[in-house]
């Protein structure tokens, strides 16, 4: 029990007459990579939004390390160590790459008014440290040369990496990636796989991801939840899932 980081029980989400998510249960362990897959419209992103606090679930409970986070606003959920990326990359496009990483550290820096206005030593140290941490992540992601460029001007693959770096700089315990491989070429996808693995090993962060790219899913996931029409079809290891008849049927034609 102590190794369970995220626990989702009976999650349901109703939009007017549409039941987008119906009774979903799953758990993510502390350094596990857990994937949610399913055909389009299965409700995967809705699950993400419920877990992340962007939607208030119609019913069900989400717990993080035993603490209930369902019903909390999204910024509070993030402060519990749960951050996410988005399907259409949501960078602060007019801010520089560096500034994107600085903003993400907002809760960790000296953000009171007086020390900042007077440039007190404590403030200056805090800013330096924030810059250093940002520089470290830029190096890790190989983005250092773009530090002062507008984030919106980066190549797409770099933007995705920056978004992940921005999440990681908040020192999360669970990283939620929403279709991180979309729009990437095969080499970039291989790099992504290596990156996720590295993040998990070096930073001990658990990963929850939604993806359509099967080779990525099979290569990186510890366990997979398959959804269709808002419901869970099955949960299991990659081998179990790929040979499950129901899964194959749901995906008829996809692979």
């Amino acid at each position, binding site marked *: 029990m102590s190794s369970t980081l995220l626990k989702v029980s009976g999650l349901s989400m109703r*939009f*007017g007459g549409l039941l987008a998510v119906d009774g979903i249960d799953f758990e993510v362990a502390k350094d596990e990579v857990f994937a949610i897959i399913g055909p389009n419209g299965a409700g995967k992103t809705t699950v993400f939004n419920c877990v992340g606090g*962007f939607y208030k679930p119609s019913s069900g409970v989400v717990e993080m390390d035993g603490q209930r986070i369902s019903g909390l606003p999204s910024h509070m959920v993030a402060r519990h160590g749960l951050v996410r990326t988005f399907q259409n990359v949501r960078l602060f496009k007019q801010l520089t790459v560096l500034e994107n990483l600085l903003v993400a550290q907002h809760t960790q820096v000296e953000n009171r008014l007086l020390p900042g206005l007077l440039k007190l030593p404590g403030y200056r140290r805090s800013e330096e440290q924030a810059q250093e941490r940002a520089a470290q992540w830029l190096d890790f992601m190989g983005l250092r040369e773009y530090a002062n460029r507008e984030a919106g001007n980066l190549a797409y693959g770099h933007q995705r990496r920056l978004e992940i770096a921005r999440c990681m700089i908040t020192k999360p315990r669970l990283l939620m990636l929403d279709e991180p491989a979309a729009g990437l070429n095969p080499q970039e996808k291989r790099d992504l796989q290596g990156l996720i693995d590295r993040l998990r090993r070096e930073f001990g962060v658990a990963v929850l991801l939604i993806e359509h790219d099967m080779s990525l899913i099979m290569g990186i996931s510890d366990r997979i939840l398959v959804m269709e029409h808002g419901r869970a079809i099955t949960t299991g290891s990659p081998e179990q899932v790929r040979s499950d008849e129901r899964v194959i049927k749901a995906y008829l034609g996809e692979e």
Partner: protein
Amino acid sequence: MSDLIPQLTQQIFNGLSLGAIYALIAIGYTMVYGIIGMINFAHGEIYMIGAYVGLVTLTAIGTQTGLPLPLMVAAMLVVAMAVTGAYGYTLERVAYRPVRGSPRLVALISAIGMSIFLQNWMALGQGARDMAVPALFSGGINFDMGADGFGVTMPYSRIMIIVVTVVLMIGLTLFIKYSRMGRASRACSQDMHMANLLGIDTNKVISFTFVLGAMLAAVGGVLIAITIGKLNPFIGFIVGIKAFTAAVLGGIGSIPGAMLGGVLLGLAETFAAAYISSQYKDIVAFSLLVLILLFRPTGLLGKPEVEKV
């Protein structure tokens, strides 16, 4: 106690006639918002222009010609509607269409600028001070209720407001439901992009929306001018905000909502003026606006929105 019923009846009647005006103007706001997602800040000025055009028409005809009253009023309405329709069309082309793709603040400022421009445009043309409107209707229906002889007075002018408004509402509802343009409007307000792909000329629908809203506001303007007996170029501002409050109250984007909201606001304001204080009646409207937007921004007849992430 015996005074209560006639008093209430009087207030309800007054509230309904006031609410009818708000409803007419609110429809304009709600239609425009429903279709392009923008608050037409200058809509109050359209109402004001309608009132002035009515007065000019009336002055041109002259009150002594012996024409039957309904005909004169009809003439005022027709001319006012035609002119404000033109204003509504031009307003959209000049101040809103060019900024359609821009961020919200840009469109809003353009609208505010237009509002200020139109107020001063009229002030330059017809003077900034109050203008008197000759009284066309005198008298009304009087009920004597209660032992003390406290009566309910229903001036003909106010009865006319309610009648005209009801007729227009029915007409509008039928039009939206059964006509081609009405269907196209509904399609556009639901999904503009899709409507475009289906071959609907969305620009024409948008122009039509502005024109129709303007015409209804003009009716409101003319009727108010006749009833109250005076006007000035700055009456659009406060009435505009109140009508917008009514639109939000009923559910922005919903025409029945605008009608309902208008009536409710008219009643609320009348009762507040009667039983709290007439000085604070404007505050009632503004406070109502703030409260609705805080607690139920989708209004009474609107659907709660979920933000798509």
